[in-house]
């Protein structure tokens, strides 16, 4: 006797409303499993679409290899080509971040705490910030030639901003109530910074770190593409030059996977280290 009252989209929506009312604590694992399965199915569908596009013959199939040949090229040359390339790219990425993050943190805190420093640097920062980092590739090559330091110059320049801005924003936004509490408790300025300001900046720092990580990867790979510095970018270009098209695609794919894993790792780190803040934050880049 049930009235199929609400239908279609509206029905899909209506069925969610009771879900909110009852708050199931239930088997969260099975939902996770279902989600993963759906995600995997989605990937399978994407692969199918790829093959379909191939079959349609819109572009010469030599230039769009099948998923199978990409996979086999990837597996075959993993040890000899892909792994070392990943290593080179990640080296630049890691060193770059290792330099940038502490620098961004210190700068962000210093500028955040000092209104005069903020004012003094504001104009300069506003003009430097929008310069696209890849535009500096030629300058970096001029200064350092094709080398790791060239990549580092680029990465540090580009990644400084997200970290710096996020930290500065957080420092400026520290709840005055917390600072008052510290003053009443008799903390010195240094101690206040260490025990109140710095912890307050952690969430923003993590967000900035996540953004910086992806920027660093883009820059490392892009620099390799143009200059031939060793790494995934160089592999993509070289493989194509040697007409090893499937390998080139495999390298592109691996680059995406690396980016995906790095992002996932930082998001997970974020969530584990600072679970109480994840929901409340916005992105600042």
């Amino acid at each position, binding site marked *: 006797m049930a009235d199929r009252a609400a239908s279609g*989209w*509206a029905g*899909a*929506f209506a069925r*969610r409303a009771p879900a909110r009312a009852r708050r199931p604590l239930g088997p969260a694992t099975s939902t996770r499993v279902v*989600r993963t399965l*759906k995600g995997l199915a*989605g*990937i399978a*569908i*994407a692969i199918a679409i790829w093959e379909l596009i191939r079959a349609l013959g819109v*572009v010469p199939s030599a230039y769009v290899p099948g998923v199978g040949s990409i996979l086999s090229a990837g597996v075959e040359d993993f040890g000899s080509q892909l792994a070392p390339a990943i290593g080179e790219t990640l080296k630049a990425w890691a060193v770059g971040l290792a330099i940038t993050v502490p620098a961004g943190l210190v700068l962000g805190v210093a500028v*955040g*705490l000092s*209104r*005069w420093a*903020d*004012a*003094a640097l*504001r*104009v*300069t920062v506003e*003009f*430097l*910030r*929008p*310069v*696209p980092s*890849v*535009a500096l590739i*030629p*300058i970096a090559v*001029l200064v350092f030639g094709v080398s790791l330091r060239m990549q580092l110059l680029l990465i540090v320049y580009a990644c400084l901003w997200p970290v710096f801005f996020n930290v500065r924003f957080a*420092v*400026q936004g*520290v709840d*005055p109530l917390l600072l008052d509490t510290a003053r009443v408790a008799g903390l010195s300025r240094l101690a206040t910074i260490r025990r109140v300001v710095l912890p307050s900046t952690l969430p923003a720092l993590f967000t900035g770190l996540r953004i910086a990580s*992806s920027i660093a*990867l*883009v820059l490392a*790979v*892009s620099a390799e*593409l*143009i200059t031939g510095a060793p790494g*995934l970018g160089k592999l*993509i*270009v070289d493989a*194509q030059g040697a007409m090893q*098209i499937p390998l*080139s695609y495999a390298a*592109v794919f691996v*680059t*995406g996977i690396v*980016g*995906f894993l790095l*992002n996932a790792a930082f998001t997970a780190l974020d969530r584990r280290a600072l679970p109480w803040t994840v929901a409340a934050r*916005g*992105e*600042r*880049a």
Partner: protein
Amino acid sequence: MSAVRLRGGKVAPALLGWVVAALLLLLWQLYAESAQELYLPTFTDSAGAAWDLLTGATLTSDVLPSVGRFALGYVVGCAVGVAVGTPLGYLRPLEPWVRPVLEFLRALPATAILPLALLVLGANGGMRVAVIAFGACWPVLLNALDGARHVDPVLVETGRVSGLGRFAILRRIVLPASLPQIFAGLRIALGIALIVMVLSEMYGASSGLGFEILNAQRRFMVPETYGGVLVLGLVGWSVSVLFTRVERRALAWHIGRTGGRSGA
């Protein structure tokens, strides 16, 4: 600590900023003149080269086409991102299926597909626009998706009770409600589009701002290299300012509501 207004009102701090910037420029100029390093031309030489770029034949042959490709790629990418992301987010059942693929595509540096795009699509402006759009659309798509997912159900119910059909709800309720999140994605996409535009002109290109810069560097025409970078900086800066203006108008209602501390 910075909640209090600086002494001197608003003029003095802004002035200080300009003074410091000018001082830094002066420092650059003096150092470059005295040190005579190959890779560091003076500011005046660089600015001169930038001026030439903007006023010479290169304006129409390189600068404007670059900006045009960037703008087109950006707009197309963002439009696709919003048009696909919003319904996807609202249609909750589909989301778990597409999420891994979308996250992968977003994590992939768009510049990495340039060599293959060149191969498949050929070396032309259309290819570059396509790659720019590719780079720009994913952050927008994912942000639109998440924004639509988290629209307050009470708002949607108000729409249903007012007799709105599902497309009208999407257009008049879900979309405006997700606008803050969409704009966050749009800003990220702006930076990405610029990067991809420049890089697309450094790889397998024969014209454009990026090409001019790289070309100058390869010929050791150093002031021209810096000049090109300055022009790019100008483009980036103007685009950013324009974006902020648009964002402020579009999100005026949101800024008032949240006191201005969320969003870009």
